[in-house]
C-alpha cells in the first residue's frame, strides 16, 4: 500500500471526516452483541425457561383439573400459568446478565479503551449500548412472553380454562412480562457501568433483582413500600402473581408501571454519568 505524502489541510480534514452518525454506533454495538457466545447462551436460557416452565405449569393444572373443587375452578387464574415465578427468575437472570456483560465485559477486558479510542464521545457509546440492548431485549421479551402465554393457554383450553389475550388482565401480564426483559437488562447495564468487573456485576445485578425483594418485610407498611418499589415485585403485581395476595400493602397498578419506567431511566442515567466521568 503506497500513499502520497500527506499535508493535512482543513479541506482535507473535512473530506476525511464524514459526519459522526449515531446509527454507526448502533451497528457497532449490534456487531459486538452478536459476536459473543454469552449472548446466545443467555437467549437460549430465556427461550427454554419461557416455554418449559409455562408448559409445565399449564400441564399440571390440566392434569389436576378434574380434582379441583368447583370453587377452585371458578377462582382459577389461567394467566399465572404463563408466567410462573420459578421460570421467570431464570429469564430475569439471563436478561440482567446480558446487560451487565455488555458494559462490564468491556471494562474488565480492557476493550473499553479500544472502544473509546475509536469513539471519544463516551455518552454516545452508552446511548448506543442502551438503545441496542433495550431494542433487542424488548423483541426477545415480546417473543418469550407471547409464546409462554400462547402455549400455556392452548394447553388449558383443553379444559376450557384458558384466557384470551384480549382480556385486560392478560394483555397487562403479557406486556409487563415482555417489558421485564429490557428492564432487567438495563439495570444490569447500570450495575455493570458502576462495578466494571464481570462476576461482581452479575452478582450485584442478581442480588438487586432477585434477592433484595426478599429482604423487605411486606407486613410492615414502610418496608412493604420499598419492596413494592423494586422491579421484580412490580412485575409480580402487574402479572397478578398469587404471591401478592400475601402483601397487605399492595401497590397500585399505575404505581407498578411507574416503577417499571423509573428503574431503566435511572440505570441509563447512572451508566451515562459514571462512564463519562470515570477514567477507564
Amino acid at each position, binding site marked *: 500500500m503506497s500513499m502520497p505524502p500527506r499535508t493535512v489541510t482543513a479541506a482535507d480534514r473535512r473530506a476525511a*471526516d464524514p459526519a459522526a452518525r449515531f446509527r454507526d454506533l448502533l451497528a*457497532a454495538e449490534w456487531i459486538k452483541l452478536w459476536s459473543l457466545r454469552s449472548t446466545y447462551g443467555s437467549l437460549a436460557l430465556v427461550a427454554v425457561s419461557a416455554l418449559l416452565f409455562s408448559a409445565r405449569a399449564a400441564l399440571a393444572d390440566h392434569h389436576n383439573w378434574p380434582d379441583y373443587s368447583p370453587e377452585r375452578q371458578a377462582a382459577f387464574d389461567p394467566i399465572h400459568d404463563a408466567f410462573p415465578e420459578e421460570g421467570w427468575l431464570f429469564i430475569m437472570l439471563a436478561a440482567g446478565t446480558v446487560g451487565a456483560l455488555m458494559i462490564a465485559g468491556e471494562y474488565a477486558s480492557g476493550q473499553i479503551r479500544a472502544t473509546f479510542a475509536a469513539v471519544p464521545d463516551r455518552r454516545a457509546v452508552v446511548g448506543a449500548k442502551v438503545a441496542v440492548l433495550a431494542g433487542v431485549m424488548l423483541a426477545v421479551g415480546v417473543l418469550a412472553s407471547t409464546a409462554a402465554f400462547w402455549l400455556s393457554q392452548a394447553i388449558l383450553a383443553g379444559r376450557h380454562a384458558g384466557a384470551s389475550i384480549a382480556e385486560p388482565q392478560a394483555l397487562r401480564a403479557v406486556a409487563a412480562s415482555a417489558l421485564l426483559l429490557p428492564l432487567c437488562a438495563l439495570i444490569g447495564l447500570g450495575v455493570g457501568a458502576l462495578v466494571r468487573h464481570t462476576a461482581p456485576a452479575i452478582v450485584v445485578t442478581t442480588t438487586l433483582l432477585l434477592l433484595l425483594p426478599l429482604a423487605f418485610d411486606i407486613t410492615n407498611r414502610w418496608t412493604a413500600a420499598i419492596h413494592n418499589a423494586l422491579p421484580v415485585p412490580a412485575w409480580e403485581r402487574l402479572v397478578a402473581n398469587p404471591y401478592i395476595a400475601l402483601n397487605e400493602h399492595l401497590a397500585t397498578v399505575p404505581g407498578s408501571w411507574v416503577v417499571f419506567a423509573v428503574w431503566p431511566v435511572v440505570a441509563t442515567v447512572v451508566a451515562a454519568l459514571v462512564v463519562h466521568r470515570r477514567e477507564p
Partner: protein
Amino acid sequence: MIELHDLTKRYGGTTAVNRLTLTVRPGHVTGFLGPNGAGKSTTLRLVIGLHRPSGGTALVNGRPFAERPRGLRHVGALLDAGDVHGGRTARAHLAALARSNGLPRSRVDEVLGEVGLADVAGRRIGGFSLGMKQRVGIAAALLGDPPVLLFDEPFNGLDPEGVRWVRGLFRRLAGEGRTVLVSSHLMSEMEQTADHLVVIGRGKLIAEESLTEFAARGGRPQVVVRTPEPARLTSVAREADGQVTTAGDGALAVTGLTAAELGELAFAHGIALHEMATRATSLEEAFMDLTADHVDYLAGDQR
C-alpha cells in the same frame, strides 16, 4: 503532530506526569523512552483522552482528541494488546471498531491482510499469542488510515520476524508523512526503529533530540580486547594515555584509544591479541546514565 504543553497528571499523591512539554512531529518515528513507571503509558492515555489531565494540554493536530466525536481517522492507537475482548474473533472485533467510525467493511480485510492475520481472522482473540494480539492492535490502529499513530510497547511478544516487520511498518508510516510515536523501556528496541527520541523519567522530560545527538552522549567508544598478557597490555595502554578496566571473563575494556592505535601498540610491543572489538552499544549506556536518577523500581543490589 502531537503537542504537549505543561501536561500534568496526578493520581492522589503521586504525580505520574509532571509538566511535560514536547512536540512530536510528522514524518519521523519518535521513540518514547523511559524506565518502568516513568509515565509513558499515562502520557499516551492523556493524548487520546482516556484520562483527563490534572493540568496542561495535549493536542493532536491542534485539538484535544477527546473533543472529536470519532477517533479512528485522526489517531490510531495500540495502547495494550490485552485491551480486547477475548471472546470475539479478530474480524468481529475490527468490524465493530470500523463500523463505529463509518469505515467500510473492506478496510477490515485490508488491515487483517496487512498485519498477516487473514488466515486466523475467524478465530477468537482469547486464543491468540501475545504477538498475534499485538498484530490485532496494530490492525486496529491502521483501520482509519490516520495521520497520527501511537504504539505503546509494540515489540512485546513479537518474534524476530515480527519485530523486523513492525520496524519496517513504522518507517513506512513515517515516510508517508505521518506522526509515529512508539514507546519502549528498552533502548535496544529503539535503536533501529526511531530517528528521534523523547526520554522521560518519573514523569519529567529528560531529553528530546535526534538519535544521532543522543548517541553523542554515549561518551567515547570502547575497545574490548582479549590477550594472554593482560598485565603488559594494560601498562602499555596506560602509557599511551588509555584508560583500562577489566570487562569480565579476562577481557580488557580500553577507552581513549582507537582500535587501530591499540592494535599497533600491541604489535610494537609484541603482545599477542586473541580478540579485539569496538563496542558501539553506547546508546543503551547513554540511556542508562541518563535515566539512572529517575528509576523508580531498581532491582536488588547493584552488581
